[in-house]
């Protein structure tokens, strides 16, 4: 039953792809307000997962662990904004690229030394026993990932579209100076976007941790694929990330099955370089007008 195998591969790959989409969405949040992204976002995912694991070890119930982890992620996002991004943005430079890379490395090293280099399982109340639909096996765990991703993205989008503060986000993205003239403090909006981005990263970490286990390197592969998704979809397009994420997840699950498990990373990277070459603003992105 070759077709069942293929569908199975596509479905489980696509579910994983949603996680890439979620992390990529975190890039879009900050990029839209400040034209900057956190190159150490993967470490935010990983650190939040570790922190949540610590909360579980401390005996906290699951429904407290999740908000705790999210809050931690948001705080890390704020820290990155303050320490690595703000100065560079004030100087209108691109120093934030290097600085966020640096903070990623710092976070990685801290995790290695605080929580150890080994991968640890992440307990969850949700079952990993597969359910079968038309011969396709899907675990409740995977379904929870899908629901979690779509729920948090939906909530953030709702916030952006339906509240005035959310509209202020878009105003800052469209024209920072004009937004300031409306009384919108761009600095605060950028801070908030980094906090939200950190929160989204933490959510990704908590969702994916039961599947990948928790370790310092848990996010290093994830993050590359999230970069690919963000760039391919366009750093300013809302739901493009979901489409591209699903696609990439499916593609790499097929690649790892048919070519070899080590080649899992290849489709994303190749897709990324191709997208950059052919459509630097992303498939769903808009072309910008050069100004003098």
């Amino acid at each position, binding site marked *: 039953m070759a077709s069942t195998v293929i569908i199975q591969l596509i479905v489980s790959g696509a579910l994983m792809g949603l996680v890439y989409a979620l992390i990529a969405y975190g890039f879009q949040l900050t990029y839209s307000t400040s034209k900057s992204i956190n190159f150490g976002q993967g470490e935010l995912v990983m650190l939040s997962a570790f922190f949540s694991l610590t909360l579980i070890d401390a005996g906290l119930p699951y429904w407290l662990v999740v908000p705790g982890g999210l809050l931690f992620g948001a705080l890390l996002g704020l820290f990155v904004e303050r320490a690595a991004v703000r100065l560079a943005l004030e100087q209108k430079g691109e120093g934030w690229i290097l600085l966020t890379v640096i903070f990623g490395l710092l976070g990685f090293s801290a995790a290695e030394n605080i929580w150890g280099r080994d991968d640890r399982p992440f307990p969850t109340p949700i079952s990993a026993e597969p359910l079968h639909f038309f011969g396709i096996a899907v675990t409740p765990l995977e379904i929870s990932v899908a629901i979690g991703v779509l729920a948090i993205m939906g909530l953030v989008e709702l916030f952006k579209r339906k509240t005035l503060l959310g509209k202020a986000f878009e105003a800052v993205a469209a024209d920072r100076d004009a*937004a300031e003239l*409306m009384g919108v403090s761009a600095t605060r909006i950028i801070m908030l976007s980094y906090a939200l981005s950190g929160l989204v990263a933490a959510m990704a970490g908590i969702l994916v941790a039961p599947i990948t286990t928790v370790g310092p390197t848990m996010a290093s592969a994830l993050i590359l694929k999230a970069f690919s998704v963000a760039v391919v979809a366009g750093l300013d397009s809302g739901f493009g990330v979901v489409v591209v994420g699903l696609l990439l997840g499916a593609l790499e699950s097929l690649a790892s099955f048919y070519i070899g498990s080590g080649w899992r990373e290849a489709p994303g990277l190749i897709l990324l370089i191709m997208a950059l070459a052919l459509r630097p603003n992303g498939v769903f992105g808009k072309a910008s007008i050069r100004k003098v």
Partner: protein
Amino acid sequence: MLLVENLHAGYGASEVLAGVSLQVKQGSVVALIGANGAGKTTTMRSISGMLKPSQGRVLLDGQPVQGYTAARIARLGLAHAPEGRKVFGPLSVEDNLLLGAYGRLPAFFGFRSQAAQDLARIYELFPRLRERSQQAAGTLSGGEQQMLAIGRALMAKPKVMLLDEPSMGLAPVIVQEVFRIITRLKEAGITLLLVEQFARSALEVADYVYVMEHGKIAVEGLPSEMHKNQRVLQAYLG
């Protein structure tokens, strides 16, 4: 309502404003005219906080605001409709207007109902905007964008409104329309500081006029006096 004293400002090493002083009384329309490059727009930018003045004072309703961020000054009741209109292109016309009232509306819920009445008033003033309320602002024509920029500034219910070159880049028919609107704003008692290149038309709506030259106020007075001033006549009124 707005008092500017000895304002100095510039970009980098070059000083554009060399001590500008002016005042706008409540309910009056004040025009700021002068050649291009004289520093009119820079004056506006320094008042609204888009540019940090290096020296001097700006008093809004008696409160010193120089050195504050633009966002803070805006929340204190100064609305600046900038040169080039600067509407939020990807956002809808209605969202643009709502953002104009950002400082006085709740951030999360209920802002729509609270703003409904003000929105209706703006739409009454600019019926074209009502027709296009759900359209992206970037797709409007230049004239419509200017209406939107003015409407957006009005949404703030400002103490003072700065209007920078509202006729810039517009077709002649539309320019007349803009001046009609300014007249209506004046009738409605809006306190207005207006920068305009159509000096003669600006003089007609203004209660008081300042003429800028090389970063300073060169001449000031009532519009009727301007018509008698040889220097101004020659330079700006053809």
